[in-house]
């Protein structure tokens, strides 16, 4: 099983590198789709079917949105990076963060043995034990997002509402009233 995860992860990393470095904008967007599809498969094998479904459908719509942005535009190839000095500095900083981060993962429990199993009385354990009895939902994830942590989901609905309202506001045809114009 673990070898499968490695294959998928390496696939995602390669797709990400292609998405970042390819010159063709549309190709780059399609590579993002590949990362998303790889991620969705990964979620499925990590025993998260809810997330896998959501990820794949969100991926499709996200791709449509991104292709909308790039298609029928004048796709002049804007390649290359910003000025050389800035690039070098950012790459060095990113590399340092990466090396620091690699050290850190040793402190986490090993992959495949989550922390919640070691902590008695952790919330996840209680969700699994009591989820069906306390909320009646057979899907424990559903009982977490809509009952135990329903308040988060209210926030999430609001985030979506905010961003749609924001997009409507940004895309509206006319932003300032002219002085003579009656209330439009």
């Amino acid at each position, binding site marked *: 099983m673990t070898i499968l995860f490695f294959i998928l992860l390496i696939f995602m990393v390669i797709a990400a590198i292609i998405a970042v470095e390819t010159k063709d904008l549309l190709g780059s967007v399609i590579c993002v789709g590949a990362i998303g599809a790889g991620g969705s498969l990964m979620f499925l094998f990590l025993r998260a*079917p*809810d997330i*896998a*479904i*959501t990820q794949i*459908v*969100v991926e*499709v*719509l996200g791709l*449509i*949105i991104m292709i*909308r*942005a790039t298609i*029928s535009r004048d796709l002049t190839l804007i390649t290359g990076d910003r000025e050389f000095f800035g690039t070098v500095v950012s790459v060095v900083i990113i590399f340092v963060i990466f090396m620091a981060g690699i050290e850190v993962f040793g402190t986490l429990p090993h992959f495949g043995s989550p922390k919640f199993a070691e902590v008695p009385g952790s919330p996840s354990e209680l969700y699994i034990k009591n989820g*069906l009895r306390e*909320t*009646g*939902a*057979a*899907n424990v*994830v*559903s*009982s977490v*997002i*809509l*009952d135990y942590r*329903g*308040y988060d*989901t*209210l926030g999430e*609905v*609001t985030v*979506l*509402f905010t*961003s*749609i309202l924001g*997009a*409507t506001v940004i*895309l509206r*045809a006319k932003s300032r009233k002219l002085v003579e114009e009656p209330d439009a």
Partner: protein
Amino acid sequence: MKGMTIIVKTVSSWVKVFIFLFGINIVLFGHLTPGGGFAGGVILAASYVLLMLAFGRQFVEENLPLGLASKLDCIGAFMFALIAILGIVFGGSFFLNFLFQKYLSGQALHLVSAGTIPLLNIAIGIKVGVSLFLVILMLSISCKGRE
């Protein structure tokens, strides 16, 4: 945007029904099987987006006008908040699953179980479906409409 060829139109007018029903299924059974309001809502939106790509924007706008869609967007969000507030009214606490604790306790693995969870799923399904449809419609208006 006039839409695509007759083959695409015919196929998508058949397929859209199945996608729509699948979306509703995912929303309604969210508390029993994988899925739920978000995934189902996105699938509902996808069925409309398919129609939009196949038949052109005008066709979709006749079926679901922009004004109505933005109102539905607000109403879906409001429904979600309302169910949360009803918890205060009936049970004294915000987001209390009052239906389950009062009427449905002991039911499990049925469609009518889990109290407010399916209702919240439906509210989220409406909200997510409409708002994603709305954003793609807005983007396509701004892409095509001003040329």
